[in-house]
């Protein structure tokens, strides 16, 4: 059976896995963005807390994903919850780091003139600093999404949804004719999802960045 025939035969399953993969990663990226931007905003003006936040989120990324998924079974069971938690941990670093970099790179004279005109702390942040840092932050979110699309496949070992299921099924049947098709179909699915996320964030970045700083 050719790959094409395989995909045709399992079309409904593959499409379902694609939707699962997308909402799984999408939800995790959303959590990463909220938490990551929050941490960045809270710490970019400080020294010690900023270093700690960066060190901790970097450490998350070094934990082997296989181990982390398994470790999360006791508190969260199997299925989507442990996968979402793990993905959120993995995706934090790019968002936090780009938020901090973006905010720290805003020209101090712009912030000073905003202050001199009577914009308060919160107004300076929401009207001046975050909009100016936004292109850098969106880039961080985009990188985070691409990393998570890949890692999400490993989530299949704790019965997480998505294309990981196909790949792991294929691994379990190494030697049988269907094994290669399962792995290849899963892999192609992951690539398609990755492209969808990439295009999505490229469009978002373009739509939400002021013409004045493009």
């Amino acid at each position, binding site marked *: 059976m050719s790959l094409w025939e395989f995909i045709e035969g399992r079309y409904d399953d593959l499409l379902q896995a694609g939707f699962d993969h997308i909402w799984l990663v999408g939800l995790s990226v959303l959590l990463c963005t909220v938490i990551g931007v929050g941490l960045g905003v809270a710490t970019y003006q400080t020294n010690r807390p900023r270093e700690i936040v960066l060190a901790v989120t970097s450490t998350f990324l070094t934990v082997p994903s296989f181990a982390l998924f398994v470790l999360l079974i006791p508190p969260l069971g199997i299925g989507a919850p442990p996968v979402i938690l793990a993905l959120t941990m993995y995706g934090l670093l790019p968002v936090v780091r780009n938020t901090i970099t973006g905010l720290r790179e805003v*020209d101090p*004279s*712009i*912030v*000073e*003139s*905003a*202050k*001199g*005109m*009577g*914009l*308060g702390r919160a*107004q300076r942040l929401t009207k*001046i600093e975050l*909009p*100016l840092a936004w292109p850098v932050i969106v880039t961080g979110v985009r990188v985070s999404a691409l990393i998570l699309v890949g890692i999400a496949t490993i989530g299949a070992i704790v019965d997480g949804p998505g294309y990981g299921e196909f790949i792991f099924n294929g691994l379990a049947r190494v030697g049988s004719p269907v094994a290669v098709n399962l792995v290849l179909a899963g892999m192609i699915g992951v690539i398609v999802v990755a492209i969808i996320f990439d295009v999505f964030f490229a469009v978002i970045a373009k739509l939400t960045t*002021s*013409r*004045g*700083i493009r």
Partner: protein
Amino acid sequence: MTNFGTVDGTAGRIMIRLENLRKEYPKEPKPAVDDLTLEIPEGEIVILVGPSGCGKTTTMKMINRIIEPTSGRIVVDDKDVTHEDPDQLRRRIGYVIQQIGLFPHQTIAENIATVPKLLGWDAKRIDARIDELLETVSMSPATYRNRYPKQLSGGQRQRVGVARALSGDPAVMLMDEPFGAIDPITRDRLQNEFLRLQAEVRKTIVFVTHDIDEAIKMGDRIAILEEGSRIAQYDTPEQILTAPASDFVADFIGAGASLKRLNLSRVRDIQLTEWPTVARNADGAAVLDALRASDKGCALVLDEQRRPCRWVSAADVQRGDGRAIDEIGLPPDAVVEPQATLNDALNELITANYSVAIVVDAAGVYQGIVDIDHINEAIRGMRTAARAKARAGLVEDRDEDLLTKGTTT
């Protein structure tokens, strides 16, 4: 030691009063601003000038509390603002910094609308204000409203910076080296534009610069500051140039104080010289008659509208073989208008054929002549007047047993 900069009764109402203002930084042995008391009269441009690190910028930034004073009081418009909500205070004070700091993600209109929006103006009023201010700084609203800062030249950005600072119609403006990052030619033009604008709006302006020439040109009053924001002299540009209060001030003004003084008076302020003139339709004999009646070596030929058209000397007439007098001699160079400074006039006459500058009004009609003797006289006159004034100040101070002028120590 006292650190006072007060003004005499001739100045207007005091708009800003700094009282015993002090700024210390941890780990620094000397205060950045040392017990400064300074009065800034309403409607004047007061320049804080001094070498780098003297505390002039710190002093200015304490007025809108970008930098919080360690101790002392700040009174703006008869109100103690030392402990007022700084954001409310800043909305009433225009602020221009050297880098301008336009918001790059906002259009020019949005930039200018910043303070009016904070002040809660309605959209129609804000819109009208944006157009008005763009016109004021000679930028067409239709062209520039919706542009972004990156689409403007340095000079245009500076203009928008000034418009933005004026947007909430503040009584007070703070300007920190506003023309510092602009090329010399554009700077000169912007300075002149700004002075013209100030003549209309009459804001109280505190202006920081390290450039004494800019201080002399822009200031109604100049505070020359030493380390720790100590006032070395607080006076009008004329007085500072003519009667420097100390060696520090004299050194800071540098060589060429007399030349700098030429920037302070204008051609219209001095008596012009009479010069032999002849009408264009006259002949060579008329020129010779006119020259004989005066002690000058050449006559100025005027056309029907009394506009200068030719310099003709006796030698020109003799060599001319009876040609019309507007075809012989030399073209009139070094033409200045009455509002030109003596410095401009001197510059022109140095290179002129007969070492004089011709003064004409806006329509080009001949008014008179400026020569080097006039300029010389004007300088001497200014020096005498300023000396007398400084001396009078000394006597007064002694009588009152009080140091009311920065010119005495």
